[in-house]
């Protein structure tokens, strides 16, 4: 399948059938993926899903039990971390405390035996890239969390790696700084054009920064897709759930072919959807999903081709949005609806009858 968001189309990292076992525990189970040159690729999943293990295998801190990894066409088997064209930003940043910022950034360059002026120029260039040019003489314990993160970035980027690995780099920062750094990291990646691989458990972070996301559960990749596709067209219930709220509706398979499914549901009627990859018709039932924000409240005389009526049973106010829980007579579980507050959704009384509009395209068939 051609990749919709490839930067140059050239594969930078090929992961083929990688398994990593720790005793009886299988951390990674036959994982395969291709990461392209210049791509911002995220490994997203809950803790313990194997995403950090995979990153450490790419970095060379650990070896796969089975399978192999190639970077830029070179097989990495038996290649230690210090000879790989990758550099890492650690979750703890691992800024050397006995050195100042400049010495930290110059650490890897020392082994290249560049002449003094060239080394200095590259250190300054890297520090300017992360906007820390003025702090070169500071010691590690005189830096804030955000500054440490920038030093870790500069120290890795100064090596001009083919691939930059980021292990939950923003998890130690407060919310505001985290959001600012997401934008900056994304800009930086575009600017330097290096392949970035980000490990995160924060779906918003992955959605905001990545070209493509691999969602992982229990040592396996469940889906690889662009942020938009992975959010709007998840292939499994688990992926859908991990990336945000989703209403699940059980349906009957009325018709099927290789690329599409026609599903009949109570409430939403008959819907034709894309057939998710690997979907097996099993007993003729399927699950349909629709995101809460894709259900729209219809006011007074508003009409829509696709309507569904119900009763508001609960309401939660979140500032810019309101979360409504709507009971539909034909459905076993109430629907959750997210509506922005510009039309007064926050004033809809609990217990009132409302009508909801939906776009049939927003309904996706899911694998269980």
């Amino acid at each position, binding site marked *: 399948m051609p990749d919709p968001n490839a930067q140059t189309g050239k594969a930078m990292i090929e992961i083929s059938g990688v398994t990593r076992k720790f005793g009886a525990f299988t951390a990674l189970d036959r994982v395969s993926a291709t990461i392209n040159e210049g791509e911002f690729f995220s490994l997203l999943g809950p803790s313990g899903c194997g995403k950090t293990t995979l990153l450490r295998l790419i*970095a060379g801190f650990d070896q796969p039990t089975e399978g192999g990894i190639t970077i830029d066409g070179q097989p990495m088997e038996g290649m230690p*971390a*210090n000879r790989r064209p990758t*550099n890492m930003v650690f979750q703890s940043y691992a800024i*050397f405390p006995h050195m100042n910022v400049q010495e930290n950034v110059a650490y890897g360059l020392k082994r290249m035996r560049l002449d003094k002026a060239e080394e200095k120029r590259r250190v300054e260039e890297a520090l300017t890239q992360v906007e820390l040019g003025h702090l070169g003489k500071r010691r590690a*314990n005189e830096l804030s969390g955000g500054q440490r993160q920038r030093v870790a970035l500069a120290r890795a980027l100064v090596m001009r790696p083919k691939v930059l690995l980021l292990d939950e780099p923003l998890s130690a920062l407060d919310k505001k700084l985290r959001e600012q750094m997401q934008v900056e990291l994304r800009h930086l990646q575009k600017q330097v054009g290096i392949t970035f691989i980000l490990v995160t458990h924060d779906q918003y972070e992955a959605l905001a920064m990545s070209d493509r996301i691999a969602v992982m559960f229990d040592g396996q990749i469940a889906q690889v897709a662009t942020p938009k596709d992975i959010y709007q067209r998840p292939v499994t219930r688990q992926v859908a759930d991990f990336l945000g709220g989703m209403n699940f509706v059980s349906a009957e398979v009325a018709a099927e072919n290789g690329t599409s499914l026609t599903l009949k549901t109570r409430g939403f009627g008959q819907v034709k959807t894309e057939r998710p990859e690997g979907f097996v018709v099993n007993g003729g039932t399927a699950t349909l999903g629709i995101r809460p924000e894709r259900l729209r409240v219809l006011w007074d005389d508003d009409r829509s081709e696709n309507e569904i009526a119900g009763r508001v049973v609960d309401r939660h106010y979140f500032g810019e949005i309101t979360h409504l829980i709507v009971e539909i007579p034909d459905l076993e579980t109430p629907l959750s609806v997210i509506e922005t507050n510009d039309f007064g959704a926050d004033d809809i009384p609990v217990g009132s009858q409302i009508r909801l509009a939906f776009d049939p395209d927003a309904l996706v068939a899911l694998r269980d």
Partner: protein
Amino acid sequence: MMKALTRGWLPGYAILYIAFLYLPVMLLPIFSVNSSPIPVFPLKGFSMKWYESLWGNDIMLNAARNTLVVGTASALVATILGICAARAITRYRFTGKRPMSGVIMAPLVLPEIIIAISLLLVLLQFGLGLSLMTVIVGHVLICLPYSITVLVSGFEGFDPSFEEASADLGETTFGTIRRVTLPMMMPAIVSSLLVSFTISLDEFMVAFFLSGREPTLPIYIWGQLRFAAKLPAVLALGTIMLVGSLVLLTVAEMYRRRAARKTLTEAGGLFA
């Protein structure tokens, strides 16, 4: 009620306890500057003559030299072995780790006289002559538990990602140890060196059995105690050793604390 009672009582108890422990030690410097050769109150007058008498004493100076050699060598060997052991204990999981740690720490609780006699028997069986070398071997055994205690707490606070970061930036294993591990562990290493040296400095039992014809200072002092007339000079020597030990331990602790502040690591120490 209870509170009022303990408030008056506990500090008094603490002061008495400390006085009982440390007053005898305080007598040492006091009598060492007394002009009378007999250590009784009232004091006769101030005099530095006992200190002066030490400088001309070749046997004493030789013992002092022996002590320095043994102390330095034992501290170095115990610390080098300690670094290896502490790293193995904190970083790796291996079978026999617990028994091994137990065996290393055993000299802390074994009676020193047993250690000394067993070592003596073994060395004699192997036909090795007694010398400063044999004392060093014994002292390394005794210093190692202290050295490892200091170093393990240093290595425990050492995040493995520092070494991974170094490898990631292209450094070899050896280069990583030289540029990252050792500098970051320096406070714990210096602490271990000074603590080991101090322990070797005043160790008597092992030195007594294993030193042969090369006495260390504690052996020399013990020998002098048989002669009442030599007592004031011994008091003077004892005072110098007391002050020396205190200075060394204070420096070790100050260095450790300053370095721990500077490097954000908890380097660990016996007196933390």
